[in-house]
Structures are given as structure tokens and as C-alpha cells.
């Protein structure tokens, strides 16, 4: 087809030809063809022509030619529609320009045009627009809109019926809309489209997924009204097109998550694992999305994780990772899937470590995409749930620790939280990771985040600090406390969130464990920390907070006379002006509280300590013996054994005194 040579027509000249009343139909047709050829597949040119106002010019031609009915009008219409579609294809700026130029009503009117070619072109352009989140939401409740939608779905033309389904996929968001659609015969029509052409199957699967998403009532309606719906969709998991297989899997997965009863007897969930593994290496969008579906499928399900492992999922995912380096969506999905597989099964972690992919992991940590960062951190967190691997120092080194520490500063809170989760586990190690974290500046970042206004960041930061300080020596604790400070720790102990309080108290529990002199931390500055701990114990409502607080007292009571006396004072303190604290905890229904309380008593009357007898007398005076005797036959063995030990110690002291 002859057209203007590129050198002959500048963009602004082109716009003039499109808009000038001096241009005849032929000029405009040539200009439109030229424009269409310029912009096809060329994002830069699309943007540049949009800026010059090309879209309103084309829409104007669209409007004029749609009203005409001669051959010349038809040619202009075809080109105008195609050009509009091209502007909207994969470009949100283009979609916006098309919508702003009021092209939508005109395009919709073309659906009924007495020319198949125009109908197809118009429908294709509309589908491209409705793939964008900028497309206006279809108002299902506006008069006659539902009727028009049903007309689209019922059309013999597969593009038109596919468009109807796409509009539903784009616009249906609320449960009210889902309900309304399910009550109008839409479900029936969509199910019938599942047996149609490729584009109908695709559009229908997406649409059904949207209408049923998170809605057990609509699901029940679908299954009730359309008996074969589930079996048709299940069959589609074997479709020859990978995209259809993926969409069918995604639908069934969503169904399982909302209304698992419909899939329980079918054994389909186990088949989904194999189907998804099979399409992992699809080069297109299917391969990008399949790992996300796999991650969703195996989440929290050890049996499915096991099945995936047996089907070599770890190897397959690592293989895809090697090839996917430059595709952020795919890389993100693969890491999430690997994280899911390694979340509980040690054999998955072992297999992964044997594949030596950590060079890829490190490069993913420096990827441009925040989503990739977050996924890698989640992956790290899951793979480091293995104490065996942490102890062996198999995969953590200074490089990846410093990369994770950098992510603590990320602008995205979810990346920071994910990095904190990974670091939380890594610092449990028993070799060098703790020191490396400090050397990489990680301690400073953790302490900063523990002061964040965001409670999730505070919680995860304190959690990481708690794990960091587990089983460390005096020197290490000194370094940590210098950075954190008692003031900040006090503030965390009294945090507004009980989960933060719990982790802060667990931090103190670890702080006062180990070398004897570490107990002195809670006595510094007149005992501020100890007083705060005692206040928390007295006022806490959550058992988890109480348990950690009591452990602190128990650990302090394993110290010297001064320490033991301080704990005595705390434990004899009356709660709510009634019983001494220690009796209240022994009466608790929580076995752990009873156990820790008994350990504290054992420590207080430990025979090697000079003041044990006096403390034993004081405890007896408040009625500790009868309380302990109640627990002699407790159902919890640990409680029973500690109580027996404590009573034995009391008896020895008594016998000693008698002598």
C-alpha cells in the first residue's frame, strides 16, 4: 500500500492532515495509515503523537466515519478503529487519551455495525482498553447496562462475547456486583463459553474467577445451577493451550481457598501441582504467573509441598530461575514458590542448598524491583528456618547479609518487614552471622527500626534483636545495649502493642541469661528495667507477656543473694491488693506460667545460696506449700516434676533446720 515516506511527513504535519477541513477523505486515509504504521509496537512514538493531540483527531474521524455508510467511510472507520486500538494497546497513557477523547461510546456503538470487519476491529480495541486499570468500571446497575452486557455475552461473534466477559473481569469488584451478575443468567452464559473458541474460553475463565472470587454464595450458586461447571473447568486443566490450563488452575485454586468442600473428594488439588509445574517454563505470561499460583497452592499445606518436592519442583524452579534473570515478575514468582516449598520441609531446603543457586539469590537482592526484593527476603526467611543449616553456615555469608541489611532501609515497608523476617532467623546462628550483622551496620538499622512509628516494623525489629542476643557473651551484649540503650528498651517493654512488649521482654530474658554479670543490666540506674518488668507482669493481660516477664524473674533469681532478694520482693508483691503474685501464677491454668513460677521458687531456695532458708520461710508463710501440693498430680509432666523438686528442696531445708 503506498504511503508517505518517513522523510516526507513530520508529526505535526500529520496532525494537520488529520484535522484540517482542507484534507479530503483520501488524504485523511493516507495520513491515518501512515500514523498507524508509525505507532505500531512503538511506545515512544505513541507517547509523542499523544502529546501532539493525535488521539482526539483520530476519534473525530472515527465519529464522522461511523455515521457515514459509503465505502470511503468504511475504509476510514477501519483505520481509525485500528489506530485507536493501537494507541490503547499496553499503554495506560494511550488508554487515558482514548477515554478522554470520548471514544468509548463510539466504539460500543460499532458492536452493532452491519459489517463484521468493523465489529471485530471495534471489539478488539475495546478489549485492549478494558485490559487497562484506567478503563472506566462498567456500571452493572445502570438502566439497561445489564441487558446490554447479556447481549454481548450472547453474541454469535466470539470477539463480542469475549468482550462481554472481559468487561465483567475488569469491572466486577464488590460482592453486591458479584451477586447481581450471578442472578441474571451471566453464570450460565459464561459456562457455555467455556466450550467455545480459545478467546472465549480464556475470557470466560477470567470472568468466572472474578465473579466467584471470595464469594461462597456465588460459588454455591455456580455449582448448584451448573452441575457440570466444575468438571468442565477441571477438564480445562488439560487444555492444549498453556494459558487455559493456567487460568483453570487459578480458578480452582481460588475455589479451594474459598469453598474447599467442592474439591475435597476430587483429588484435583494434587493434580494442580503437576499441571503448574509443567507450565513453569512457558516463555510468556503463563510462565510468569504459574509460580505465583504454585506458591498459593502449596501455602501452609505440607502434603502438597511434599508432592511438589517428589515431582522435582525445587529443581524445576531453580532451573527457571537460571533462565529468568531479567524478568522481574517471573523472578518474584519463583522466589515466592521456592519460599513456599521451603517453609516447612527440611528436605526442600536441603535440596535447594545442594543446587548452589546462591549467586542468583544475591543478584536478585540487588535487582531494581522492590517486589523481587521482598520475595527474596521471604525466601531467605523460609530457608533459614533450618537450625541445622544455620549452624553449618551453608549459605549465609557476608555478601548476602550486607545486602539484606541494605534492604532494611528500603522505601517500601513490606520490603523492610520481609528483610527483618529473614534477618531475624539468620541471627540465630551459632557461628559468625551475629558478628557479621553488626559489622555490616545491621545492629544500627535494627535499633532504628525498633523505634519506628509503624508497629509491624517495631515488632519485627525487636524480634530480630531478641534472636540476635540469644546465647551471646557479655561483650556482645554490651555492644548491643550501647546501641539500643536502656531507655529505648524501657519504651519497648511498655509499648502500646502487646506483641512488641512480649518480644522486648523476651529480649531482656536473653539479656540476663548467660554470664552472671549480665543480670546487672536490669539493676542499672536504680533498677529501672526490673521495675518496668515487674509493672508489666502486674498489669499484663496476655499470658505470652506474663510468661516472658516471669522468665526474666526466674533468670535473675539464678544469680547472687542480691538478685534473689530482689526477685523475692517482686514475687511477694500483691496483685490487685490481694494475693502475692507468685501464688496467683501458680493458680493459673497456663502450665507454662506454673512451670516458670516453680523454677523461680527453685532458684530462690537453691541449697547453695546462704539466704535460701530465710526465703523458704517467707514463701511458706504466704502459703506456697499447699499451693504447690495441689500441682503434685498436675496433668502437665513438667509442672509435676518441678513442683516435686521444689517440695523436695523445702523439705531438705526443714530437715536441715531441724538438725
Amino acid at each position: 500500500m503506498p504511503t508517505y515516506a518517513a522523510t516526507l511527513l513530520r508529526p505535526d504535519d500529520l496532525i494537520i492532515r488529520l484535522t484540517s477541513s482542507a484534507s479530503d477523505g483520501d488524504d485523511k486515509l493516507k495520513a491515518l495509515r501512515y500514523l498507524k504504521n508509525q505507532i505500531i509496537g512503538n511506545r515512544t512514538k505513541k507517547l509523542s503523537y499523544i502529546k501532539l493531540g493525535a488521539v482526539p483527531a483520530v476519534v473525530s474521524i472515527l465519529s464522522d466515519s461511523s455515521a457515514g455508510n459509503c465505502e470511503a467511510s468504511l475504509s476510514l472507520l477501519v483505520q481509525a478503529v485500528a489506530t485507536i486500538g493501537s494507541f490503547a494497546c499496553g499503554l495506560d497513557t494511550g488508554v487515558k487519551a482514548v477515554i478522554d477523547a470520548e471514544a468509548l461510546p463510539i466504539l460500543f456503538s460499532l458492536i452493532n455495525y452491519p459489517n463484521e470487519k468493523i465489529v471485530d476491529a471495534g471489539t478488539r480495541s475495546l478489549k485492549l482498553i478494558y485490559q487497562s486499570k484506567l478503563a472506566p468500571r462498567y456500571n452493572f446497575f445502570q438502566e439497561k447496562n445489564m441487558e446490554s452486557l447479556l447481549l454481548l455475552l450472547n453474541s454469535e461473534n466470539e470477539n463480542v462475547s469475549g468482550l462481554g466477559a472481559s468487561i465483567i473481569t475488569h469491572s466486577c469488584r464488590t460482592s453486591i456486583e458479584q451477586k447481581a451478575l450471578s442472578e441474571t443468567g451471566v453464570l450460565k452464559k459464561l459456562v457455555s463459553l467455556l466450550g467455545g473458541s480459545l478467546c472465549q474460553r480464556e475470557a470466560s475463565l477470567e470472568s468466572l474467577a472474578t465473579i466467584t472470587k471470595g464469594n461462597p454464595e456465588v460459588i454455591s450458586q455456580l455449582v448448584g445451577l451448573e452441575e457440570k461447571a466444575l468438571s468442565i473447568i477441571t477438564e480445562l486443566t488439560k487444555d492444549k493451550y498453556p494459558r487455559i490450563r493456567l487460568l483453570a488452575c487459578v480458578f480452582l485454586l481460588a475455589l479451594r481457598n474459598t469453598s474447599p468442600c467442592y474439591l475435597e473428594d476430587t483429588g484435583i488439588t494434587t493434580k494442580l501441582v503437576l499441571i503448574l509445574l509443567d507450565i513453569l517454563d512457558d516463555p510468556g505470561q503463563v510462565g510468569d504467573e504459574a509460580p505465583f499460583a504454585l506458591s498459593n497452592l502449596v501455602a501452609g499445606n505440607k502434603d502438597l509441598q511434599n508432592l511438589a518436592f517428589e515431582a522435582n519442583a525445587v529443581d524445576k524452579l531453580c532451573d527457571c530461575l537460571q533462565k529468568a534473570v531479567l524478568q522481574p515478575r517471573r523472578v518474584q514468582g519463583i522466589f515466592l514458590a521456592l519460599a513456599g516449598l521451603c517453609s516447612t520441609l527440611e528436605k526442600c531446603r536441603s535440596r535447594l542448598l545442594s543446587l548452589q543457586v546462591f549467586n542468583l539469590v544475591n543478584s536478585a537482592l540487588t535487582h531494581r524491583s522492590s517486589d523481587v526484593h521482598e520475595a527474596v527476603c521471604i525466601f531467605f526467611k523460609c530457608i533459614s528456618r533450618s537450625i541445622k543449616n544455620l549452624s553449618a553456615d551453608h549459605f549465609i555469608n557476608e555478601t548476602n547479609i550486607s545486602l539484606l541489611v541494605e534492604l532494611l532501609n528500603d522505601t517500601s515497608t513490606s520490603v523492610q518487614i520481609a528483610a527483618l523476617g529473614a534477618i531475624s532467623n539468620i541471627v540465630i546462628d551459632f557461628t559468625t552471622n551475629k558478628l557479621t550483622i553488626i559489622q555490616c551496620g545491621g545492629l544500627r538499622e535494627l535499633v532504628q527500626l525498633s523505634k519506628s512509628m509503624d508497629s509491624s516494623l517495631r515488632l519485627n525489629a525487636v524480634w530480630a534483636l531478641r534472636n540476635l542476643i540469644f546465647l551471646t557473651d557479655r561483650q556482645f551484649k554490651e555492644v548491643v545495649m550501647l546501641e539500643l540503650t536502656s531507655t529505648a528498651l524501657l519504651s519497648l517493654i511498655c509499648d502500646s502493642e502487646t506483641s512488641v512488649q512480649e518480644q522486648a521482654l523476651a529480649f531482656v530474658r536473653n539479656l540476663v541469661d548467660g554470664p552472671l554479670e549480665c543480670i546487672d543490666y536490669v539493676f542499672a540506674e536504680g533498677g529501672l528495667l526490673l521495675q518496668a518488668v515487674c509493672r508489666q507482669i502486674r498489669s499484663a493481660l496476655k499470658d505470652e507477656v506474663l510468661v516472658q516477664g516471669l522468665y526474666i524473674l526466674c533468670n535473675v533469681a539464678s544469680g547472687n543473694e542480691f538478685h534473689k532478694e530482689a526477685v523475692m520482693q517482686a514475687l511477694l508483691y500483691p496483685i490487685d491488693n490481694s494475693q502475692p503474685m507468685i501464688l496467683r501464677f501458680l493458680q493459673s491454668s497456663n502450665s507454662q506460667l506454673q512451670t516458670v513460677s516453680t523454677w523461680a521458687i527453685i532458684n530462690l531456695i537453691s541449697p547453695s545460696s546462704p539466704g535460701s532458708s530465710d526465703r523458704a520461710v517467707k514463701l511458706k508463710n504466704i502459703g506456697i506449700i499447699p499451693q504447690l501440693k495441689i500441682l503434685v498430680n498436675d496433668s502437665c509432666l513438667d509442672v509435676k516434676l518441678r513442683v516435686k523438686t521444689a517440695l523436695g528442696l523445702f523439705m531438705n531445708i526443714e530437715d536441715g533446720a531441724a538438725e
Partner: protein
Amino acid sequence: MPVRVAEASAASSQLSGASSGNTIPPACSLLSVGQAFSGTQNVSSLQKDEAWRVNVRIQGCDLQHGYLCGTMEALNVPMADTPVVTFWEGEIVDTKNYTFFTGKWEATTEVDIRHWTKFASFSPLMSQVENDGGKSLDFSNYPYIFMRWKEQYFVNVGPDCGLTIAGFYYVCFSCSDGSISGFYYDPNSSPFQKLELKSTNEGRCGFSFSSYELQ
């Protein structure tokens, strides 16, 4: 504990059967992460009597899966300049995850019974174990925990240090006082080398407990 290799014959192993029931041993404060134990291992042979001082620390504990792990430090090892540290993993006999029958590591059921019967606390369980492998045993109130500990690798020396960690320990832990006794089994080493440990307070006047929580 790494030991020297000695002559012994290999034995075939048998697979243990599955078990059922809710018989998982209770959580025991003294068998938890961070807890330390110290004592000795007798490494005597026909040639000489020898005992190494041993320190053990628990690093990981997952009762639901019958899993335990930690480090073992052997002091005064003649051929080593420093204490030798190994990482071990434990299988807790809970009849759900693991039974009294090892089924690997060249330990036959005869070898298993021979070792378990060396623990006095095993006698009440003997007939049941001989009957059905101990499948119907209920450990929920039993104040002893039976385990197998298998050293996995050397932490601070190379594998060519002249020591071996090919065998494993049959272990009995007393929930009451935290004492541990064990017998090392390796078909190529002297039999019944005994491990005896007590819970240690590491310089404190009482018991102290620390913890971590995996995310």
C-alpha cells in the same frame, strides 16, 4: 563425640513400622534450646582407659517432629590442639515420628534392644517394645525421653582430623533432673562407650532459660 575407629562387623538394618496415637513426650524445661550439659564420655578400648570431658548444648528443638539438635564439645582430646566441636541431630522416640528401632546406621533391632536395655528406665517398656515395637506406648507421663543422637559434621576441625563421627548415641534423658546417659554405637568402634552428662548451671546459683523464635 568423635571417636577412633576400631574393628567390628557390619550388621543389616531393618525398617521400623509406623505408629499411631497421641503419645508425644511432654515439653521438658531442661531439654530446651540454650540448655547446657556437661560430663564425660568413656572412650576406653582394650588398650587403655580414657575419658573425655564433654559439653553439650541444645540449639534446636521441635517436639512435634521429634527433632532435636545441638553441639557437642569434646575436651582433652589427645590428637587435637583445641576442643573438638561437632554438630549433632537427635531423633526423639515418640512412636509417632521415631520408634525404638533405628532402621539405619547399621543398627539392627537386636543392636537396638541391646542398647536400650542398658537404661534402667527402659525396663518397664521392654515387653511392649518387644511385642509391637512400642507402637502403643504412651509417653505423655513418662519422665524419661529416649533419643538417638547422630553427629553430622565437625564444626571447628576438618574431617581429616583423625577422628570419626560415623556412629551414633542411644540416649536417655531424665526430665526430672536433666541428667543424660548415652551409649555410643559404631560397628567399627569399641562397644558401649558411655556418655554421662548432667544439666549445668554454668556458674549460676539456679537455672536460667533463654529462647529464640523462628519467623
